[in-house]
Structure formats: structure tokens, C-alpha cells
């Protein structure tokens, strides 16, 4: 690295730190990216990758450190400034205005530059064609699929004549065909001398087209090296930093008879979903973002209107029209979006925990505070939620502790069937492990869990059985302990030739 001259570098990050309340997201991170290269960044969830990128693009401000982009030191930047400087970013969370058309989203904020509506659509068409995306530019973003959205995002980033493009997990929801297109684009860009920072959890991609790779863990840079000089195993060790066995507890052992049977869920998106859930089992659902996993569990839980399907509990038909019915029938749901669907953020830890079990601490419709306090404190203790008191607003807690509050809410009423949609999203490794232990305990106590997670290792290691879903259809059923990962992934990607 010492041989590189300054002008060789498109960006040079030195000792950048960033803290969020309760989390040190980045701790003295230093990375250099050379011009005209593809620089991969890998690291487990929460390592700080997205945070770093958002600092580069001006969404967050760094606490300390220096950033030199294209020879210029950047102190305090905004999204607009960094774009004009030639730094474009594809955010991990989709970043489109759903009420506007595809074309306008590509050139959001640059209507004038595009010389009006016609120019906007024409140029967007050109751009989308160049990356092989056929969606009509007049369509509203709210009407297109997640993977198409991803392609539109890519088009948007390309539309800036950028010197550096950051791609934060662009492939997480692309089909194989679209992925191939993306690889082609990346090669093209590199040959034009444009640099790319490429973040992904898919190590194959890193090895396929990244020149250099940086491994991050817990807010630190562990190592930066040319891809040609590392092996896959090396990289994984660096990423995780310890032996794999420690990360997940052993799966629950005893699986009993059928606890719940779901027959024929059909919605606009889902096609004829039927499966069984057994006592003491953790059942994983695997699929891409937007495959329909969440929709399946929401339909079961009565949160979405779905018609014609049946849910059998212990062999008997259960009538579940709304979440309340589901709760009474012995189901519990940890929704995928903690802030929007799970918590009432301004309310106290205690009332967030107690909100599903109001009948347990009330009599004749009157709340009995001492009982409620008891419930709150019991769950806080049982789950070791880190909070000064049960009275503080839940918004003040860290993500993991917030998640635990939702878990506690349902543990209090001890549902037989626990549906967990992304239960460890944004949760640190330690807390994750605790949640895994909890899951195991619930299963071993005769309950059952449906687990949805975008982290493949998590589903594979925790589940007794996984179902793969592709575009609203069940495409396979596997025992993760015995099936190779590739087979499961192929099924989840809807590849023909693989079926249960």
C-alpha cells in the first residue's frame, strides 16, 4: 500500500469513528480505494458497513477522522454536495419515492437538468435499457417489484457521472439474470475508470469481480487485501472472528406431532401455500426480499385479508380473522419492522411489554398497576433487557433491547406458536445468541416457531426444517442439517431442476 501515490486513490478514509446512542458503529476505520477498481467490503450484520457509506455520502456526519475524496478533504458534506462531487450511492434500504414514476425517480431532483418530463423519461429509458431493465418509465414505483426497484436504484446511481459508486448490497434481491447484467455493468464501469465500493454478504460475488476486499467486524477494519490473495475460509474467519460452533446453539432435538396446519393461502402474491408445523420444531422460511415470506405469516396471523385458506390447530379448524383471534388461538408474531409494526415508540418499556396481555393485569376492565409492573419487570429480568427502569420510553433503548421487549410481550402470554419475522434484525451478536437460546427454549417447551430471516446462516443453523419460497410459491422443503446450502439457495432463487 505504501507504493500507492495520493493521486491513485479515489477515496482515502482515515480513522473515521461514529457512535450512535449506545452503539459504537465505527471505531477508527481506515480504508483506501484506488481509482478504477472494485473494492469489496464484507462483514457480518451490524459491522458498520452501511454506516460508513452513509458518512461518505453525507447522510450521517462522522464523529472524528478524515476523508479525502478525489484529492479534496471532505469535512462536512451533504447528500447533494457529494453527488455533485461525483460520489453516488445505492442505499441498502430502497431509496425511491413510491408515489412517483420510475423515470422521475431515476432523475429525482434533476428535472431541470433533464429538460423536463420528456427528457427525463427518454434519458431514463436509455439508462434502463443499458442495464437491461425493461420496466416502463411511466410506471409508479409503488407498482413494481422489489428487484425492479433495485435495478432502478442502480440506474439512478449510474445517472450521475460519478467517479465512485457505492453499492450497498445491491444484489440482495436480484434474480440471476439481473445479477449477470449487474456484473456486466460493473465490468463496464471499471473499464471506464470508475471506482466501485461493493458491499455484499455473498462471498462468491466478492471473489468474482472485486479487486480488493476489506473485512469489517464490530466497527473495526480487520484487514484489507487483494482478493486474489485470500481464500474463502480465510475471509470467513476474519469476518466472524471466532469459531462457528459458538454462534448458534444446537437445534431443538425433539420434534413431535403436527401442531398447526396451513392449507391453501392465496393472495395477489401468494400461490397455494400449504404446510405443517410440528411441535417442538423451528421451521425456517427462506426466500429473497419480497418473495412473500412476510405475507405468508401475516395471512396466518390474520393481519392481512386473505380468503379461503384454513388454519388447523391441533387438528381443529381455527377461525382467525384478525390478530386478536390469532392471539387467542395461541399464536404470537414478532413483526419484521420493529419501529412501524412492533413498538409504540413513545410509550414506556412496561406498556410495550404488557400490551398484548392486558386481560392478565386487569379486572372488570380496570388496569391493576402493580400487576402490570410485575409483568414488565419479570420480562425485563427474564430477557435481561438493558434499561434503567421499566418506565423509560422504549425509544431510548438500543435496537436489540427494543426487540427483546417485543419478545417479552409475547412470552408473557406464552403462545404455542411463535412467528418471528426477522427477529434479529439490527441486533448485536450477544443479544442474538440470547434470542437463539430463547427460541430453543420455546421449542423445547412444546411450542413451535416459524422463523423468517434474511440471514441465511441464521435460518439454516436454527431450523429443523426450511421451506423455500420463490415469487409467492413454495419451491422446496429441506433439512438444513443435511442439505448443501447451494441446493437450498437454488431453490429459493427459483432455479429449475431443484425441487423437494
Amino acid at each position, binding site marked *: 500500500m505504501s507504493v500507492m501515490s495520493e493521486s491513485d486513490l479515489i477515496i482515502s478514509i482515515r480513522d473515521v469513528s461514529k457512535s450512535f446512542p449506545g452503539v459504537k458503529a465505527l471505531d477508527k476505520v481506515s480504508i483506501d480505494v484506488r481509482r478504477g477498481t472494485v473494492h469489496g467490503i464484507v462483514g457480518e450484520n451490524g459491522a458498520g458497513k452501511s454506516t460508513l457509506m452513509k458518512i461518505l*455520502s453525507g*447522510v450521517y456526519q462522522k464523529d472524528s477522522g478524515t476523508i479525502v475524496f478525489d484529492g479534496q478533504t471532505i469535512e462536512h458534506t*451533504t*447528500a*447533494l454536495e457529494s*453527488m*455533485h462531487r461525483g460520489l453516488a450511492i445505492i*442505499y441498502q434500504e430502497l*431509496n*425511491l*419515492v*413510491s*408515489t*412517483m414514476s420510475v*423515470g*422521475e425517480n431515476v432523475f*429525482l*431532483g*434533476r*428535472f*431541470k437538468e433533464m429538460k*423536463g*418530463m420528456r427528457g427525463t*423519461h427518454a434519458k431514463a429509458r436509455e439508462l434502463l435499457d443499458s442495464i437491461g431493465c425493461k420496466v*416502463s*418509465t*411511466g*410506471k409508479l414505483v409503488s407498482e413494481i417489484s422489489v428487484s425492479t426497484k433495485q435495478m432502478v436504484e442502480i440506474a439512478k446511481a449510474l445517472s450521475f457521472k460519478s467517479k465512485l459508486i457505492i453499492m450497498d448490497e445491491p444484489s440482495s434481491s436480484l434474480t440471476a439474470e439481473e445479477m449477470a447484467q449487474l456484473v456486466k455493468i460493473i465490468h463496464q464501469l471499471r473499464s471506464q475508470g470508475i471506482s466501485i465500493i461493493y458491499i455484499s454478504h455473498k462471498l462468491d460475488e466478492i471473489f468474482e469481480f472485486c479487486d480488493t476486499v476489506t473485512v469489517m467486524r464490530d466497527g473495526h477494519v480487520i484487514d484489507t487485501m487483494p482478493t486474489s490473495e485470500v481464500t474463502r475460509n480465510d475471509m470467513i474467519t476474519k469476518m466472524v472472528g471466532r469459531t462457528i460452533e459458538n454462534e448458534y446453539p444446537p437445534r431443538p432435538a425433539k420434534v413431535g406431532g403436527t401442531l398447526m396446519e396451513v392449507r391453501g393461502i*392465496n*393472495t*395477489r402474491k401468494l400461490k397455494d401455500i400449504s404446510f405443517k408445523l410440528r411441535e417442538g420444531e423451528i421451521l425456517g422460511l427462506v426466500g429473497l426480499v419480497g418473495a412473500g415470506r412476510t405475507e405468508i405469516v401475516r395471512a396466518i396471523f390474520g393481519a*392481512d*385479508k*386473505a*380468503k379461503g385458506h384454513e388454519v388447523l390447530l391441533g387438528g381443529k379448524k381455527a377461525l382467525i380473522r384478525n390478530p386478536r383471534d390469532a392471539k387467542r388461538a395461541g399464536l404470537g408474531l414478532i413483526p419484521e419492522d420493529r419501529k412501524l409494526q412492533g413498538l409504540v415508540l413513545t410509550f414506556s418499556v412496561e406498556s410495550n411489554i404488557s400490551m398484548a396481555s392486558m386481560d392478565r393485569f386487569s379486572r372488570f376492565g380496570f388496569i391493576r398497576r402493580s400487576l402490570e409492573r410485575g409483568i414488565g419487570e419479570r420480562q425485563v429480568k427474564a430477557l435481561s433487557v438493558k434499561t434503567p427502569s421499566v418506565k423509560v420510553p422504549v425509544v431510548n433503548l438500543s435496537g436489540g433491547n427494543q426487540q427483546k421487549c417485543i419478545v417479552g410481550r409475547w412470552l408473557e402470554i406464552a403462545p404455542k406458536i411463535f412467528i418471528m419475522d426477522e427477529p434479529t434484525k439490527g441486533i448485536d451478536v450477544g443479544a442474538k445468541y440470547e434470542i437463539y437460546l430463547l427460541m430453543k427454549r420455546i421449542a423445547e417447551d412444546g411450542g413451535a416457531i416459524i422463523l423468517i430471516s434474511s440471514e441465511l446462516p441464521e435460518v439454516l443453523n436454527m431450523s429443523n426444517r426450511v421451506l423455500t419460497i420463490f415469487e409467492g410459491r413454495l419451491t422446496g422443503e429441506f433439512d438444513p442439517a443435511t442439505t448443501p446450502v447451494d441446493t437450498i439457495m437454488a431453490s429459493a432463487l427459483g432455479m429449475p431442476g431443484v425441487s423437494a
Partner: protein
Amino acid sequence: MDRTTRSSALFGILTRQKALPFIIIMLVGMLFTKTGFYTPYNLLDMLNSSSILLILSFGVTLTIIAGGCDLSIGGILVVSGVLSIKLQSVMPMWPAIFCAIVFGVVVGFVNGFLVVHQRTEAFIITLGMGLLLTGVAQQLTDAHPLPSSNPDFMMIGNGYLLGVPNLVIITIVCFIIFAWLMRYTQFGRNLYAIGGDYEVARYSGINVIRTKWLAFVISGGTAALAGFLLSSKLNTGSAIYGDLTALVVNCGVVVGGTSFAGGIGGIPQSALGLLAFGMLDNVMNMLNITSYYQILLKGTVIVAIIWLDCFAQKRKRELV
């Protein structure tokens, strides 16, 4: 844009736009009555009568599309009306009118500061602002109507150009300017983006604060313009002309199909919404419907249109 999306956009307007079918029903229904509805005089008169509310709605639409709303327009309307007359005692007419409009712009600026910069709830803060301004107008006029003695001033709001009332022409000009602004300019499209998703707009490098702020300024200026025109039309300024105006206009905008959540809608929609109200008034008078039933009918129409709109959205959400 290809043809299919264009025709589907048209279809979308027809299904989303609940005021349009309602207008068509009225137009068709009136064919079968023996009234003077279908006379050029009446049709122009109907437009003329709706003109002030239409102009007000254009400004308000901007704030609603940007994800806010403006309930202070009633107050701005009356104060600017009073000012445009009162100031004529110390300066010529056009400067007086100019000052009145500047006043509206200033109020809009303050609204924008409070709503956008200070992040207060637009609904409640502009409601309070409207109340305050009504008091200002009362104070300015000692609660007396203030007639203007300048015939030129009156002719602005009551004159004709080539047989078309000035107000109708001004409304059409405003319509074209605002529709153009919202559809064909950077500013307009940015407003849609801001109302659609504030954060995304921010990340995309749009100067969200300045843009949304400007929407309030324009709304204030438009309200002041409407206020001066109203005063000219009535040849009088008074504090009591704007009492229900703000709610009626905001309601008309929503009835037209502009979403109060922001990001969806447009000037043509708002125009249709308020035209529907204007036409309903006209039709009810033509049919000699008695006062109390008129009130009943109008309330029912408001509820029905918004109900249908919400219901259609619900059906769309729940489509299985």
C-alpha cells in the same frame, strides 16, 4: 412515455378522481331540467363564482402535495383584501395591491418557517394563524366593511375581456401557471418528491426545507391575490369574508383527489374538486332546493366522495 401507460394514466385519473364523475352526473342531470343552466351566461357565471376559491385552491394544493396544508388562507384572504383597499388612501392602486400581496407572501413565509423549519404541525399552527389574522382584519377595519371608492379597482373583479369575466381569465391564467409549475418545473416535481417521501427527497439532494418552505410562501401569496380579487369583486374589504373559506378550500382539494398525506394529486384535480362544489351550489340554486336541504346535500356529497375515495383505496390495499 409509451401509449399504454398514458391510457392507463387516464384510466387512473377517472377512477381516482371522484369529483369528475360527480360533475358529469350533474351535467347530464341538468340536461333533463328546464332551467337556465345551459346558457353561456350561467356557465360563465358559475366559473366566475368559483374563481376565488379555485385560485385559493391552487396555492393550497402546493402545500398539501408537499405534505402540509394551509388553513390560514381565510385570514390572509381577508387581511389582504382589507389592505388592498385601505392602502389606497395613502398610495395609488397598483402599489396598494402589490403591498397586499407582499403581506400574504410574508405570512406564507412565517407559516413556512413554523411548519418546515420548526417542524410544527401544519394543521394546527396554520389554524391558529388564520384566527390571528382574522383579528388583525377586524382591528384594521374596526370590524366595519370597508368599501372602496375607486371604480378602477372594482372593474378588476367585475369587468370583462372579450365577453369573458376578468376573474375567469385570471383563474385560467393561474391554472395554467400552477399546472405548469407542478408538472413541468424542477420545483413542482421536487414538491411531489418531498410529499411522497421526505427522507428520500432529502437523500436525493433536494433542498427539502427551502422547497417546502417556498410552497407555503406561494400559498400565502396566492391567498393574498385571491383576497385582493375578492375585495375587488365585492368592492369591499371586511374581516368576515373568510370564515369558512379555509376548510372549504382544503376540503375541495381533497375531494378533488389530492391526498392529504402528500405526494399525490395536482392542480387539475383541485380545480375539479372546487368546480364540483361550485357547480353543486349553482345546480342546487337552479333547482330551487331550499336552504336547509342544500346544506344537507352538500354535507352528504362531501362525505360520500371522500368515503368512496377511501373505500377504493382500502379495496386496493386489500386486493387478494
